[in-house]
């Protein structure tokens, strides 16, 4: 997307968020309901106001959702997502080693066997150093998962 009506997209997001939270409102007590109800009504109103503004006096963003190397950015986002989702199941050290090494390699200018190895060596050093600081010195119990 190059030039987009940011008020329109923003308005839809706010309206959707308000409706989503409204539907989640269960049988709350009077005191549990007082504040959320007011905020949800206000966010729906702000969403509608943004939608009206998008038609009357719209704000346009230049080059929204456009980066020089979009595939590389999306790849990094996907690696992060997989890293986080599997960290508890597989273990901190293994997931971090693979995700970090892969991220280093993805961001290299030349992707070959040499840079692949150097990326994973760097990742191993970083993961071990931080594992030692957090798990051994600060006693933070990092996820062990099925491996370690």
């Amino acid at each position, binding site marked *: 997307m190059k030039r987009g009506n940011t008020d329109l997209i923003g308005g839809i997001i706010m309206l959707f*968020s308000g409706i989503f939270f409204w539907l989640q409102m269960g049988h709350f007590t009077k*005191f549990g*309901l007082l504040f959320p109800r007011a905020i949800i009504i206000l966010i729906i109103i702000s969403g509608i106001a943004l939608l009206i503004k998008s038609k009357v006096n719209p*704000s346009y963003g230049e080059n929204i959702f456009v*980066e020089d*190397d979009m595939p590389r950015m999306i790849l990094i*986002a996907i690696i992060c997502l997989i890293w*986080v989702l599997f960290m508890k199941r597989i273990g901190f050290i293994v997931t971090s080693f693979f995700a970090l090494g892969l991220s280093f390699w993805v961001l290299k200018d030349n992707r070959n066997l040499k840079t692949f190895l150097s990326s994973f060596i760097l990742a191993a050093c970083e993961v071990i150093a931080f594992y030692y600081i957090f798990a051994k010195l600060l006693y933070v119990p*990092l996820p062990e998962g099925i491996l370690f």
Partner: protein
Amino acid sequence: MLYTVLTSFAAIFTIKNILFMIFGVTAGMIAGGLPGLTATMSVALIVPFTFTMDPITGLVTIGAIYCGAVFGGAFSAILVNTPGTPSSIGTTFDGYPMTKQGKGQEAVFTATFASAGGGLIGTVILIFLSVPLSRVALKFGSPEYFWISIFGLTIIASLASKSVLKGFAGGLFGLLISMVGVAPIGGDVRFTLGMPSFQGGIQLISILIGFFCIPEMLKMAGNLKKHKMKTVEMQSGIDVFKKSFMNVFKKPVNFIRSSIIGAFVGVIPGAGGNIANLVAYNEAHRSSSNPESFGKGNPEGVVATEAANNATVEGSVVPLLTLGIPGAPPDAIIYGALMLQGLRPGPELFSGPNAKITYAFMLSFFIANLLMFVVGILGGKAINKIVTSVGHKYLVPSIIFMTILGSYAIRNNIMDVIVMLVGGFIGYLFKELNFHPGPVVLGLILGPIAEKGLVRGYLMGQALPVPWMIFFTRPISIILIVLTLFSVIWPFIKNKRDAKNERGAA
């Protein structure tokens, strides 16, 4: 009192105490600079080690760690757009743009001057105004907390000056997220989608890291070639040092005002550096002769937030020592440390044999802030050099790794990491749509305070014929309402005045 102050001051000056304070300040700065490691966590980590120390050494070490951690958050805020602690949210607004302009070192030095100066002013307030300030803080009831949070929300107008409507919507979005979890009054489990991990609410620091850091890292990953940090080659260290000094002291009003705001906000229990830095930023922006440069790398913004958050440290100690009420989460840990040393917070701390220890603890903030300045200048130069010289292809994965580790370490909960990452993706979406992250985070911080104040105030008002009247009849509430109205109306008055002046000049 003077004799006690002098003997306490002498008691701090031992080689052992100074060395422990240098260690405390340095360790605190490192922890504060790492996203996810908070001032509370740093203080909590050191308390078990201070148990075996004599009371003065133990307490001065804790005080030094506390100061260092709050200041350390500025490093990551300025250099990688990630507030290391919630107290540094406002520092990202102008600190990071300065880094992008090649003025990272100047921003770090400016933050160092402002933080140390703000801390010193806070210490003076702590020593001389402890007792009267704590009496004022006690007068704050639920309706006042509600109004102070509403006053805080008026900052949105300054933060989102490009589009107040988007700022308002962003603030409401933050308030919406803040309601996830168990309701503060009533105990309802709200908006958790049936997930028990959300019952404790959305972790503020996770969302903070996600909103500020992840979008920036994704953008760096997507623009590796053009996204290079500039460095200003022609400026020597001395020039930057002088310029940073001038940034703070050329316009002392901003610096002094922000320090006083920080100390006063710190005194109010529950309102810590996370609120003080934004209030001070708002006031700096509002009173500046060049408000349009805020958010684009104006050092005044860095001065305001950093002076305020470090003055909050000393301010939050006031209710702790005088009333036994922790002003901020790290003070709750310090409360425990005092009890471990056999010191019961309250009036008895200021009389008898305890007075020497109490005043030594308060005076140690002077030394800690001076040491923080020295370590900040030396460390700031090195850290800036590392961040600006390391290529983004190494920096991006490493910082993402630290954000994942940091958000997990807050309470060892994988859901906090997922929230951080999802928050980051939403932050990227909002950034592209020109929603400023400040209002969202502000809503998230002020939401629980506003809700508690509203519902408790309403309950208090049940004794009146019209319950809502309690919000409009108490003296401090009326002052806060006037301030809120002034804060809302002031931008319009200022715009009108500026337009009139421009017409006059033409």
